[in-house]
């Protein structure tokens, strides 16, 4: 049963991003959340320690998320005028470890992104979520996004991964 709830959460997260419902998407995350998109250090190796490595994104705490969303929704960011259309597909959802208070979940994602300036791009990677229960609802505490791309070609903003 739990896996169904977990899947629903991940599908909801993806759908809110696609529908550009930023506030509702942000509400899925707890206050001391982390979104980590590591950079590749070489063709085969990701960076390990986000604190002291270059990361594609390392958003620690809700204010960091809100800063990105402010920019996306601002109608003033050159690269995001107009916004890309996205369609996220989240699959292969698996519970890796259930520690009761926290659950680690692994999944795969692909995103079709239609950027007005660049056209169609197809990107993908892995999600590693850590979910926690807060006031009876499952929410996101930690999300690691392993993006397969290392040579970025076009815009890769938070709503496009």
């Amino acid at each position, binding site marked *: 049963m739990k896996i169904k709830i977990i899947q629903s959460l991940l599908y909801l997260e993806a759908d809110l991003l696609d529908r550009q419902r930023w506030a509702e998407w942000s509400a899925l995350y707890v206050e001391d959340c982390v979104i980590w998109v590591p950079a590749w250090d*070489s063709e085969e190796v990701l960076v*390990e320690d986000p604190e*002291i490595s270059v990361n*594609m994104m390392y958003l620690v705490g809700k204010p960091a998320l809100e800063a990105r969303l*402010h920019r996306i929704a601002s109608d003033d960011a050159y690269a995001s005028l107009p916004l890309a259309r996205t369609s996220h597909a989240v699959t292969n959802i698996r519970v890796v470890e259930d520690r009761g208070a926290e659950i680690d979940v692994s999944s795969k994602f692909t995103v079709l992104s239609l950027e007005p*300036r660049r056209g169609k791009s197809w990107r993908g990677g892995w999600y590693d979520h850590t979910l926690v229960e807060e006031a009876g609802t499952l929410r996101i505490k930690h999300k690691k996004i392993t993006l397969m791309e290392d040579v970025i*070609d076009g*815009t890769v903003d938070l709503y496009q991964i």
Partner: protein
Amino acid sequence: MNIESPERLATDMVDESQGVFRVARDAYTDPDVFEAEMAAIFEGGWIYVCHESQIPNHGDYYATQAGRQPIFLIRQAEGGIGGFIDACSHRGAVLTRARRGTMKTIMCRFHGWCYDTKGACTLIKNEAGGWPGGVDRARFSLQAIPKVESYKGFVYASLSADVPSLGEALGESRAFIDLVADQSPDGMEIVPGNQSYMINGNWKLQAENGVDGYHVSTVHRVFARAVAKREAMGDRGEMRKTEAARITGEVETGVYDLGGGHMLLWAQRGNPEVAPLAEKLDWLNQTYSESKVDWMLRKGRNLFLFPNVFLMDQSSTQIRVIIPHTVDRTEVRTYCIAPKGESRKARAARLRKFEDFFMVTGMATPDDMAALEDVQRGSNGRLAPWNEMDRGVSKSIRGADTATASLGANPVTSNPDWDSETLFHGFYREWARVMR
């Protein structure tokens, strides 16, 4: 295009005959000019390749392109750096399997030929089977790059032997390279993790963009607001606070034509006490002149070294390398350069600011790239052929201003406003000179 030669065309594209400095937009879109640039500039003179700390030990290599030609640099046993065309002497296969790696023996994965780090061919698979009388393997040495030199850890190569020394070529930019290279008693290092990205734009647009101050208050306005919102929500105390005074136009700024095509853009830091380098203030004051410390700590700088690299030290510290692929397709490789021995706290702050501003997945650089790509598209409107780059000419002075004089640097021109375009004159004059 009706032109006699690309070289002549390049000269015609930089025009000062009408009393105004203008550059033809064809410079960004003409494929014949691009081919000429590759031959004359990227394959005909010094280009930045990598930092010494990226190839520290015997066999460590770094692969890139010099113009259209694949090359690699490799650390040799006695500590020297060899440079070679990245092609097996047998049938031309690229020898490097990755951008960086280690190979004390260079082995071609096609037919198994081997070379040492000096480029000598040390093994031909089944040599006797191919040449029963033996063969002089010296004929099959890797093609060496004629010039490889390093300045303060920044390693350059030239595919042409007919170049001045690297020091001469860098000229007045050296005082500004020093401001980055001299930030630690133990030297500088490249932090793990890097990013490359592709731009649908001409390489010269990236060269301009990195030292263009005029766009900052427009394009990065949203960056300043996003960061302010984050801090208002209680994030980023102390050293992790982002300095954004240059974006809101509250501070002194300036630009220099340093000669040789090199350019510098600077802005006074609004809150230098939150710079990661600030933890070293005592050591800086003991080691360097007041002027140098002021430049290192209190002025954010973007230094462009002709033709292909930026050393940026403003919100964070970055090496940004430009690798042209075609006339409207450019690869950029970015690295965070940092002082060895920096505290973990300062390192983390440096990196968070790097991610904020310099990463194409961050909140500033993608906006620059979008603007740049729009210029590329707009430049195809050949009915409107010229860019005038004369903003701020009346404020320009010949030679050094007080700030650079005290640093011992002598620019061609100084301008007390980073909205000015006078620094581009130096870039395009050098460009036209090399292309002739």
